């Protein structure tokens, strides 16, 4: 009985600790590398956003070199979006990943064509 | 007060035991009920004590039932974490059989058959639904009238009558099934 209470209190404490504000210099080197584009703004982010970014950063080490590059390039723009915009993008991405492979390829081709036209 | 408690303790213990089928729990209930009586009503005239005590006892038994329900849920929830609780895990029927064997040794002048009959009646009582047993015991064993029973149970006289007649029927058929013949 006492053991259960202890375990639960630890769990409570750890969730509370997770939710608290994390200064930039307390992040691990990997976290700092993944979130480098955010180093300046970090202190001004909301707790929720910090938490979200930290959990996103967890996946960083598993990325390929190319993916890491894209990740770092986009992170700044991504975190400037409003929470609603980010949620809309997630919904869109989820919907997009559910369409048939062939359709997806078509869309990707259109986007690539579109981009190459824009480029000088 | 002391005399009163001494007079009622055996019957009260048995009542609790029929309801919870566990002697430790029955003793706990009895102690709780006695403490409440002493705490609140030690200045009341002796004539009022039986009714007050019955009301407290029945409430305590009902509370125990409610707690037991929650406890069962908790025990299931934590069964993997908590070492087995021997008191809670006992088969109620098993404890009844123990009861029949050990706590009614019977006096030499009493027939074995009668001891067995008493054990079977107690067992059948234990199987009744809470309210039916409550009504039956208050009305016929404690000798309260219908109005007093209703007051002790916190229900209408009509419900008391219904509970009593159902209890009597259930007891009769349960005992007949066991081959017990009663007048």
């Amino acid at each position: 009985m006492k053991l259960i209470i202890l375990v639960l209190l630890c769990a409570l404490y750890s969730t509370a600790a997770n939710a608290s504000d994390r200064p930039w210099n307390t992040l691990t080197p990997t976290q700092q590398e993944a979130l480098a584009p955010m180093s300046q703004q970090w202190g001004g982010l909301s707790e929720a956003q910090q938490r979200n970014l930290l959990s996103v950063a967890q996946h960083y080490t598993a990325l390929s070199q190319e993916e890491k590059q894209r990740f770092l390039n986009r992170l700044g723009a991504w975190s400037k979006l409003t929470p609603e915009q980010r949620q809309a993008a997630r919904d869109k991405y989820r919907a997009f990943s559910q369409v048939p492979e062939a359709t997806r390829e078509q869309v990707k081709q259109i986007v690539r064509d579109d981009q190459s036209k824009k480029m000088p | 007060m002391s005399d009163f408690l001494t007079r009622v303790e055996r019957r009260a213990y048995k009542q609790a035991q029929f309801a919870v089928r566990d002697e430790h729990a029955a003793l706990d209930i009895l102690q709780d009920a006695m403490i409440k009586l002493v705490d609140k009503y030690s200045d009341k005239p002796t004539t009022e004590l039986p009714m007050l005590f019955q009301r407290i006892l029945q409430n305590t038994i009902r509370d125990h039932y409610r707690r037991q329900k929650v406890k069962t849920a908790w025990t299931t929830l934590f069964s993997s974490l908590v070492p087995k609780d021997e008191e809670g895990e006992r088969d109620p029927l098993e404890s009844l059989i123990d009861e029949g064997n050990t706590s009614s040794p019977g006096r030499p002048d009493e027939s074995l058959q009668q001891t067995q009959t008493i054990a079977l009646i107690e067992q059948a009582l234990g199987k009744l639904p809470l309210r039916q047993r409550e009504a039956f015991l208050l009305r016929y064993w404690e000798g309260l009238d219908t109005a007093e029973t209703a007051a002790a149970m916190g229900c209408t006289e009509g419900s008391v009558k219904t509970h009593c007649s159902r209890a009597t029927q259930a007891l009769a058929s349960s005992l007949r099934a066991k081959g017990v013949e009663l007048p």
Partner: protein
Amino acid sequence: MSPNKRLQDLSPEHVARLLTQGTEHLDNRTLSALARVRLVALHRCATRNAGLTLDTGHHAHWGLPHTTSQWGVTAVLLIAIITAGASYWRHLHEHEMSHLDVAILTDDLPLEVFVDH
């Protein structure tokens, strides 16, 4: 008792008599437990002690709360469970969200495709 008589109806009075006989031979262990319970209740008046249950010597089980302190412990336990449950669901949600975020941030399609401006 007259075992040769068999009636359809059961006489509650007879049952009551037998029950009373049943109380007359409780074993000594039970009788002394009863006496102890009675004494505890009677002494309770003088030594009313808030908080702790009186030990009758047969309290080895963890029952449901009897006292204020036990209720307190139960309340803490409940709150902890609810909080833990809520935070578990939140973590699950955040986990799913972070997966999507990483996918968007690393997809070969540019960010703008998914973002409405």
